[in-house]
């Protein structure tokens, strides 16, 4: 069964996707499944091992189950400072 989630992209992922956020309809069960689905679709260069996921504005594990209405963000390696 499909669910609809908000996905935010940052930095290199935002540029590779060509937008900062979008509503995505997916049947992915976990955050990792969703990232792999989107990575295939948009040819993201970063493997999930180099990316972190945030669920509803908090860091989460890749195995987090996703539900309709969730907001996910995919975070490339950070480089503040």
């Amino acid at each position: 069964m499909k669910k609809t989630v908000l996905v935010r992209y940052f930095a290199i992922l935002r540029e590779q996707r060509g937008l900062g956020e979008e509503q995505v309809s997916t049947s992915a069960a976990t955050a990792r499944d969703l990232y792999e689905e989107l990575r295939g679709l948009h040819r993201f260069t970063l493997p999930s091992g180099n990316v972190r996921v945030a669920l509803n504005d908090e860091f989460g594990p890749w195995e987090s189950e996703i539900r309709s209405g969730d907001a996910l963000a995919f975070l490339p390696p950070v480089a503040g400072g």
Partner: protein
Amino acid sequence: MKFELTSSEITPTALLSALDDTAAGACVTFEGRVRSQNEGRAVLALEYEAYAPLAQKEGERILSEAAARFSVLGIACVHRTGRLVLGDLAVWVAVTSKHRAEAFEASRYVIDQVKARVPIWKKEHYSDGSTGWINCAPSGPAGPAPA
């Protein structure tokens, strides 16, 4: 104790006066600036992009951790976002404490953790017209860039 993201120029003097405390014998500040070279390439400008809600939370957590680990009187960190040019202040950390060891250790802890954990990204613009997101080469290590 204050963590702040800002899209306008960081002004240390005003920020420091908020930390004034006659109990403080020591104040250590760290300034991170846009430098002209990175890994041998000439840098003209850079952009910082932040995931603001989570960057704010993570920044505040880091300051809380530093305050819990080290005996400090005041602690602050400000990080720029947006476009910066050479010499601009990118990040500023200040810690006051009674004795100097704590101010050194806490300020080092804050900048190390901010660089490693806060969701902020840096895109460098080079003199040859090319650009690059730091740490985001597909096969490169995921660790933070130095300094």
